[in-house]
């Protein structure tokens, strides 16, 4: 039945100059369903949703919304029909209230004056179910509340199809769950979602159907999710069998090189942690449990932290800033590439050598040949895909940006590496590459700390897991034999929040 579909795209072709981004793609999204859209970076996902949202026009092809043929519609026209694209960056005006943001630009007004009381009343009734106070300042909202507000804004403007572009970026597990519950609630009210994600698990959890794009072509359109599993999804995305990397752990290896002692900061209290040479240790824990905080403290990003990090028995105070940490042989990967990782407007080469300028310079002068050598070495080692060394880093895909950041980190020849969400927002294929690179690093004697909310990934690549509860390490277990469920069990049961949290589904 054709009228089951809210949006129908047929034979959509999009050319950018000589590049064909979409090669005759079809997509159908049912009413009141969550439809997943998967694909590697550059597969054409963004182009397709931009066409649906009216941001760019297709070169050829047809589109029907609610059975009605759409011709030459721009963003405004599509929004009037009820199609909204909600991007990763929440578009929230922070100093304004939730109600102001909800009706941004469409405030109820009389002769130019906003009718505040009326607006509050409208917002209060609209937001009742979503459990958001319209009077709160948007700046006080959490990340997930901001995402929800963005979706609500689209709904308030008459949204029927909400396109979510990687809405779970930077969300914790609990937040993710909250967002998904909210989406299911709306789905029951026959709102449709087109959901873009890099994570198979998310697709399997929230979506009813999924479509996979590869290289501008639709590989699987409208596949029923309940018939699929994670490896089937990965195979569709990359087009070949993915062998998930699994580290071969050898527990008896290596001497203890690094010892953390008496680390104290607000909300952090770690008495002792030994890390072996060439060991990969995972820091796991709920948000605020101290896992991320300890990682930052070791790298000098928490200037208020006090404590010691001994190397081979020699006592050292924790570094005061990253510059000192790097000199001590410690390197760090940020969890948020755009915020404090890449320098988007600068070249790949400049980004790569940024932390190892002393190695490519003499007396304050940058040696071009030394720099080129270093860049070429890592370019090959990490298989960076880009036009040239001089291309601005911001123009690369997420996966390639991450490779450049990893190059920057490895180029400092560190002895201890802290990786924060190393595979966030990158393709399945690149993820496995990153895992192998980290494994290689450890075999060369580098100790590695991995902090990630993707516990399944963590268990595949670490030797031991340190579990954080309320700012302390509550347990350290070999990863071998642990399951995701075990980790959650420990994280929750040891915590005071166990009562409310034990009912949360895992991940």
């Amino acid at each position, binding site marked *: 039945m054709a009228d089951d579909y809210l949006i129908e795209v047929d034979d959509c072709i999009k050319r*950018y*100059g000589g590049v064909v981004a979409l090669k005759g793609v079809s997509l159908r999204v049912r009413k009141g369903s969550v439809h997943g859209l998967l694909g590697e970076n550059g597969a054409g996902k963004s182009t397709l949703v931009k066409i649906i949202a009216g941001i760019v026009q297709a070169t050829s092809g047809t589109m029907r919304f609610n059975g009605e043929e759409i011709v030459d519609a721009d963003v405004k026209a599509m929004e009037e029909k009820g199609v909204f694209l909600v991007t990763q*960056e*929440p578009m929230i005006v*922070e100093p304004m209230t939730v109600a102001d943001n909800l009706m941004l630009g469409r405030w109820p007004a009389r002769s130019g004056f906003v009718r505040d009381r009326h607006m509050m009343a409208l917002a209060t009734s609209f937001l009742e179910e979503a459990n958001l106070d319209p009077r709160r300042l948007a700046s006080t909202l*959490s*990340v997930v509340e*901001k995402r929800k507000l963005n979706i609500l804004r689209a709904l308030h403007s008459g949204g029927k199809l909400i396109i979510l572009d990687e809405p779970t970026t*930077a969300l*914790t597990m609990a937040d993710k769950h909250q967002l998904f519950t909210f989406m299911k609630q709306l789905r029951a009210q026959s709102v449709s979602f087109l959901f873009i994600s890099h994570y198979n698990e998310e697709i399997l959890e929230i979506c009813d159907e999924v479509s996979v794009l590869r290289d501008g072509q639709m590989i699987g359109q409208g596949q029923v999710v309940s018939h699929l599993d994670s490896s089937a999804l990965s195979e569709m995305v990359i087009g070949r069998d993915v062998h998930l990397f699994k580290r071969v752990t050898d527990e008896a290896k290596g001497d203890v090189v690094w010892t953390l002692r008496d680390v104290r900061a607000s909300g952090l209290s770690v008495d002792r942690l030994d890390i072996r040479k060439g060991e990969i240790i995972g820091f796991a824990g709920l*948000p*605020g449990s101290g896992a*991320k905080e300890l990682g930052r403290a070791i*790298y000098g*990003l928490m200037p208020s932290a006090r404590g010691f990090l001994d190397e081979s028995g020699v006592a050292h105070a924790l570094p005061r*800033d*990253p*510059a000192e*940490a*790097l000199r001590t042989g410690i390197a*760090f990967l*940020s*969890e*948020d590439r*755009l*915020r*404090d*990782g*890449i*320098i*988007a*407007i*600068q070249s790949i080469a*400049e980004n790569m*050598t*940024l*932390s190892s*300028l*002393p190695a490519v*310079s003499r007396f*304050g*002068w*940058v040696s071009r040949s030394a720099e080129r050598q270093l860049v070429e070495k890592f370019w090959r080692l990490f298989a960076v895909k880009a036009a040239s060394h001089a291309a*601005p880093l*911001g*123009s*690369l895909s997420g996966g390639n940006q991450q490779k450049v950041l990893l190059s*920057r980190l490895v180029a*400092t020849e560190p002895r201890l590496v802290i990786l924060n969400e190393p595979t966030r927002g990158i393709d399945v294929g690149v993820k496995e590459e990153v895992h192998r690179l980290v494994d290689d690093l450890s075999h060369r004697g580098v100790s590695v700390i991995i902090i990630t909310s993707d516990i399944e990934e963590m268990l595949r690549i670490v030797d031991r897991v340190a579990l954080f509860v309320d700012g302390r390490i509550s347990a350290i277990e070999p990863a071998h034999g642990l399951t995701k469920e075990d980790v959650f069990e420990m994280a929750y049961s040891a915590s005071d929040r166990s009562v409310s949290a034990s009912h949360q589904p895992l991940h």
Partner: protein
Amino acid sequence: MNTKTSVMPTVAVAPGAVAKNAGASPSVQLLLKYVVWIWLVGLVIVFGLLNKFFFTTSNLQNILTQATVLGLLGLAASLPLLVGEIDLSIAGNMGISSAIGALAILQLHMPTFLGVIVGVGAATLIGFFNGLCITRLRMVSLIETLGMMIILQGGLLAITQGATITDFTDAYTWVGQTTVGGWPVMPLVLFVGFIGMAVLLRRTVFGRKLYATGGNAAAAHVAGIRVNKVKIVAFTLSGFIAGIAGYFLASWQMAITSDQGEGFLLYSIAAPIIGGVSVFGGRGDTWGILGGVLLLTVIHVGLAVVNVPSFYVDMIGGFLIFIAVAVDAIRVGMGGTR
């Protein structure tokens, strides 16, 4: 943990924005990158057609001499801009530091060279102080340096008591007045200054740190760059260059008025921006700054040469600057990089 969203202007350089420029061909991008030079050549031709005198050697010398002070000041303004800050006090700094140096010579009877060093030293200290305020005290550079500008302008008025300082020693005015084979020596300083800056930005570790700090200070910090130190050095160096510019202006004019330098403020900020230096930091190069300086100087001199009545000079000059900035905005919109 991640609840605080970034206030950095990183969104302004979101990947999409950069990706767009894949459309413009390399030659178009190169053209856009140096659009200020095209604009400059165009204006030179127009002024030359309006008045033959514009193409004479003496006028060329005049332009280069005039461009020296503005050029040095443009360099001084660029350093804070490159790290994503701004310094409005450089013109005031130029004025008061030259007066301090001159008074040390004239009233404290210091040797000329020592007086000049005292003046430049004072300017350097003022720049250093600005840097400290902006980094250690986290003052907003726009307002901190605005306050500093007013203090320095007022200070100049106070120490000169409203009078103009003249009667310099010959040694003091030598640089501003000497010609070699009919050519003034001042422009030599301009070119030394620009070559020095180009080397600093392109070839040194400090240049890398400047661009990284301006491009994304948070990322630079995580990458192990001491961002505050870089900013302090940028402001200090900026003050030093402003001090040199102050000495040259006084030496050339053979006078220090009680509002010395004030007219240079907006032009010194405008020149680098016209030349492609971004007010958000991290973008801009020496060629662009030089182009911006020469463009403003040509507009200034050209309007005088073609006998535009003085009542209209400012308005037309402002209009030409306006167009230059608009052209630059189009350039950035089309995705040109530094």
